[in-house]
């Protein structure tokens, strides 16, 4: 893996902007990162972004910070990680530091609460846009196993409130099983 320090500034700037605009949880920033680093800058592959998401979701700590560490590491090693983290944590630190001085006015301002409410519609649109592309690519693999896992995982998380951690660990198990079956078939020269 080659390190490219010339990308540090763009990395910092991208993370700073994404973090400043991430209203509503870890998966929002993952969608934004996918658009920025996979589609726009083409620094990462789509599969890689999904792997990074799985890893960040299984590790402790805030998801955006975890994702910054891994993406930064990929771009420019440990220095890249530190740069990406700085970009990610500066906006919330600055914003909250200022707001903590007059949070009563902030909390009760009707314009702010309306803006935050309608913004959810925009955030949802961004996530749906990313999901349409991602789901399309899963369907293109034409593997019944993957497509059905996607559907079952959605039902389990959204309708049955199964935790993301359990979903990922279960799929890890299925992946290992898939690997074992594949290896077994190869060993037997395809005669099953």
């Amino acid at each position, binding site marked *: 893996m080659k390190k490219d320090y010339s990308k540090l500034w763009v990395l910092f700037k991208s993370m700073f902007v994404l973090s400043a605009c991430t209203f509503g949880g870890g998966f929002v920033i993952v969608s934004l990162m996918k658009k920025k680093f996979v589609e726009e800058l083409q620094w990462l592959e789509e599969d890689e972004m999904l*792997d990074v*998401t799985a890893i960040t*979701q299984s590790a402790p700590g805030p*998801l955006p910070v975890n994702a910054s*560490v891994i993406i930064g590491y990929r771009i420019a090693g440990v220095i890249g990680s530190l740069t990406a983290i700085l970009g990610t944590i500066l906006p919330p*630190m600055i914003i909250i530091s200022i707001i903590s001085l007059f949070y009563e006015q902030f909390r009760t301002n009707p314009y702010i609460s309306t803006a935050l409410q309608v913004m959810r519609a925009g955030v949802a649109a961004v996530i749906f846009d990313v999901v349409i592309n991602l789901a399309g690519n899963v369907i293109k693999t034409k593997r019944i196993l993957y497509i059905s896992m996607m559907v079952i995982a959605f039902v389990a998380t*959204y309708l049955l409130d199964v935790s993301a951690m359990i979903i990922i660990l279960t799929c890890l198990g299925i992946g290992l099983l898939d690997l074992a079956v594949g290896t077994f078939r190869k060993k037997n020269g395809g005669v099953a």
Partner: protein
Amino acid sequence: MLLLKLFFAFIQVGMFSVGGGYAAIPLIQEQIVNIYGLMTLEEFSDLITVAEMTPGPISINSATFVGMRIAGIPGVLLCSIGCIIPSFCICLILAHFYYKYRSVGGVQVVLGAMRPAVVSLIASAGASILMLGLFQAELREVVVGELRVVELGIFVVALFLLRKYKVSAIAIILGSGVVGTIIYALLGAI
């Protein structure tokens, strides 16, 4: 001494909050309110409200808020750094191994099985946010008659702009906030 206490409190928050922001809330409450008594429960609930209203991870937001109230800027830095130290160490190790072994055939097969699930996790987060946007409620509490038409319109237009004209995501998020607020103000609903 107080600063040191804060620092260690947030290292623990960073280390034991697995699975996203909402998992961190009880943990922060335990450390800040119950164990160290750095805030009252009422101040803590204000903090969570503000943290939810502002961008960024909830644990960083709380670390900043608590740090600022108790020790000013040095407090902010110390709490936030404490909060990310565990993430940084653990994810660096994971990143190292991921990039070392990810091209191995077997690892690809296993990762391949995890990817469709990640797509679903993202989709599920999107669906939850959409429900909150359209009905101000979780799926189970949705009342069909309370559909918010303005938000529905913004969602449809935003998705169209994203798919058809590749408008930037940041512009969509900020734009929807501005446009929506203007519409509600014109309707006299604010």
